[in-house]
């Protein structure tokens, strides 16, 4: 069996997680969320971006009783908690940003106050720079 060597000590990359789908109906939203949570264990930089119908993932007041699926909206609170921990603790070298695309938000009649967590609202043009500066983009 081949032996692999990983030199990961001190490696720091910027990941952008692009959420573009509505929260339920497909498995994309939940899978990306789980990937984000796992990435916290490796203390990498992350931009968690919500665009297109993905902005609905963060909307407060999800009620899934009618569709018989688990409401995973409360789990987004972990992203906010991880971000706050990283911001406060100088030992954690991890920058997390929770970003909503302005155009997508406005097209759906939403404002930053409609979301469960604190977000940065950036234009599509500003978002392009973020994606450009990322080492890795994971889209869902």
């Amino acid at each position, binding site marked *: 069996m081949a032996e692999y060597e990983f030199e990961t000590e001190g490696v720091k990359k910027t990941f952008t997680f692009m959420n573009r789908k509505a929260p339920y109906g497909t498995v994309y939203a939940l899978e990306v969320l789980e990937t984000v949570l796992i990435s916290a264990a490796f203390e990498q930089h992350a931009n968690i971006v919500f665009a297109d119908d993905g902005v609905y993932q963060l909307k407060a007041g999800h009620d899934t009783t009618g569709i018989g699926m688990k409401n995973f909206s*409360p*789990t987004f609170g*972990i992203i906010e908690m991880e971000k706050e921990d990283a911001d406060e603790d100088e030992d954690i070298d991890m920058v997390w940003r929770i970003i909503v695309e302005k155009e997508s938000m406005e097209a759906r009649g939403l404002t930053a106050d409609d979301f469960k967590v604190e977000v940065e609202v950036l234009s599509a043009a500003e978002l392009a720079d973020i994606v450009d500066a990322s080492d890795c983009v994971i889209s869902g």
Partner: protein
Amino acid sequence: MAAYTVNGVDYEHDEEGYILDVTNWNEDLAKVIAVEEGLDMTDEHWLVVNFLREYYNEYQIAPAVRVLVKAVKKQFGAEKGSNKYLYELFPYGPAKQACKVAGLPKPTGCV
């Protein structure tokens, strides 16, 4: 379906001993599960179990092990904020055993 019987009430559990309905949990039931797991529950065990329950209530999933370690560190001090310490409390895996006692679903991670 197998069940724990506590004070005359049956609580159904799966083949590995995780109770099926999180909302049915109570301390007496936790004590019975702990005995089945061979655990002698100390205050420190309870602190871990209570932390897991609070976290699950708020976020609807069990915490990652590193989050649990961090929380224990905050509560008990730096020398106890380690995986090793958690394994001393819950020898068959902190997430697995502590979640079972706390009435949470089986964690999807490996420990």
